[in-house]
């Protein structure tokens, strides 16, 4: 930001413009970056919640998380775009299908690896490459986009016009996150999830069927990735490899927030979304994703357990 402001001042000196319009431009740019950061940050939070939930309960990191996000985007593109189904129905069906796919993956691939974390890492990594290449064969390398929900733009605080689709995505993602929190904090199912992620053996002793819970929560994690995918696909079209940056950001969010912490995901997602967009606006667009990595390194150096992490590793 400092570099940018000095550049603006130098430009002023050479062109002789008065200071105030440029300041205003800088302000608008800042506000726009913050707005973009909020929208994308909420989506990151949503994607990261899926990862965190699975890590908390099963101690498994799903490296195919980003590919499931993309899968949901493709499903909603297929149903709403190519088949012309109502977009809400298309989104719900897409998330449901990914949920079922998640259950299947847990049953076939992940369940036999319990007790050996390394194999689940390897299996989900291979799965991500398989899915990427399958998408490439089926849909080609071109970006695909389901139709938008709403058109037009809204004037935000009299500063700039902002696409309604993005505002709708912000609202939809916030609603899904709120619903998830209600489920986890207020319902019987949520209590089982919290109990198991706190102490697996105790939960088992109290009669929790952890095998079935693993399957359900893995599916739920995939469904959260899918929800992020269907919400964001009309804004950022899906390509076969677009899942990796989203998944990586979700992983960084989980580490930043603390493995298994849900509030950490929300806060971490917003922080990363804001940093990424402010960095892209004021420092360099090409290195947008580098900022995430710098944050990851800082977290590991200063507070490896994350913002809300439990101390033990």
């Amino acid at each position, binding site marked *: 930001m400092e570099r940018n402001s000095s550049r603006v001042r130098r430009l002023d000196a050479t062109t002789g413009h008065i200071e105030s319009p440029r300041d205003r431009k800088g302000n608008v740019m800042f506000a726009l970056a913050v707005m973009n950061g909020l929208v994308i940050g909420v989506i990151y939070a949503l994607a990261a919640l899926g990862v965190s939930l699975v890590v908390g309960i099963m101690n498994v990191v799903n490296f195919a998380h980003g590919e499931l996000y993309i899968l949901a985007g493709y499903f909603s593109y297929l149903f709403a775009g190519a088949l012309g189904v109502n977009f809400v129905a298309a989104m719900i069906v897409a998330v449901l299908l990914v949920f079922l796919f998640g259950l299947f993956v847990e049953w076939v691939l992940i369940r*036999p690896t319990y007790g050996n974390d390394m194999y689940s890492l*390897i299996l989900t*990594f*291979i*799965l991500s490459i*398989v899915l990427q290449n399958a998408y490439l064969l089926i849909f080609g390398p071109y970006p695909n986009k389901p139709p938008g929900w709403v058109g037009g733009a809204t004037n935000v605080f009299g500063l700039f016009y902002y696409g309604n689709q993005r505002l709708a995505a912000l609202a939809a993602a916030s609603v899904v996150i709120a619903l998830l929190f209600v489920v986890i904090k207020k319902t019987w199912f949520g209590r089982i999830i919290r109990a198991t992620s706190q102490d697996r053996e105790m939960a088992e002793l109290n009669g929790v069927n952890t095998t079935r819970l693993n399957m359900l929560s893995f599916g739920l994690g995939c469904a959260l990735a899918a929800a992020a995918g269907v919400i964001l696909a009309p804004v950022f079209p899906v390509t076969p490899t677009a899942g990796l940056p989203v998944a*990586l950001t979700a992983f960084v969010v989980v*580490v930043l927030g603390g493995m298994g912490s849900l509030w950490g995901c929300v806060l971490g997602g917003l922080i990363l979304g804001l940093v990424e967009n402010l960095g892209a606006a004021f420092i360099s667009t090409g290195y947008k*994703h580098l900022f995430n990595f710098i944050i990851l390194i800082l977290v590991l150096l200063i507070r490896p357990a994350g913002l809300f992490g439990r101390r033990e*590793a």
Partner: protein
Amino acid sequence: MTDKRFYQVLVPAVVLFSFLPFGLGSYHLHVVIVSLFYLMMASSWNLLAGYTGQVSFAHAAFAGIGAYASGILAVRFGLNPWIGVVVGTLMAALLGLAVGVLCLRMGGIYLSLTTLGFSEILRIIITNEYEVTRGTMGLQVPGLFAEYSKVGYFYVMLGAAVLTLIIIYRLIHSNIGLNFRAVQNDERAAASLGVDVVRVRVLAFTVSSALAGMAGGLYGHYLLLITPEIPSLDQQFLVLSMTVIGGMGSFPGPIIGAFSLEILSEYIRAYGEYHVLVFGLIALVAARFAPNGLMGLATGRLMRRRAPEKTVAAAAKS
């Protein structure tokens, strides 16, 4: 396998291999050279994953560091490629040490996450800094020899592969190797017996990254063109599947995996885009149903055949 038996197998194999240039044409020699590169990559990845139980997704990235460090030094500063490969190896070792120290305090999952991020960042840097790296166009680098000689490269790669195998073998059969396996089997028990778990992991990661850097440096000077393909995740995936299919945690596993998959990939290359997908499916099935790979299948079969013999012998004795 005792030391003596290891060299009894290694020496004849190397002698046999060194006759290959007399019998093989240029194309087949190329396949063998590429296989030797993958042998180094898969074996050194196995040192980390198979013997200490940590999964790094940046192994190809470290090969890329070796290749780009050596290539850029040669192109920009006219450094001798042989010295460049050494510098590239050291660079990979240093970065490996840094990444290892950074995330291995927190356990294996953090290494996997960080290394995945690391290789993605490396890709971004390489494509963004195209003035230095030539981005996706690829960086043209000088060869190791003044005059191009495929046979020369073959012997260099063979020498490097043998060196890699000896380093890995000696390491896993030393006290340090015992610590590696202790940490893999039961971290807490190892720590309670005085093994410095973090240091053991960092050491394994550093050595493995350095070996990848050396392999990548040599490979880059063999191809004469360094592209972001070398540090890509697709490449990482190939190395991983070779190790998993060959047999993780066994010494010959990655060697078998590297040769069989590289040769297989030459056959199915004709199908172009299906090639990675087919590999992925094979690797998925192998990792799920035969977690010890081809080596596991082979020894399992042998054990089963031997087991009844033993009982028969025992019965005869009684």
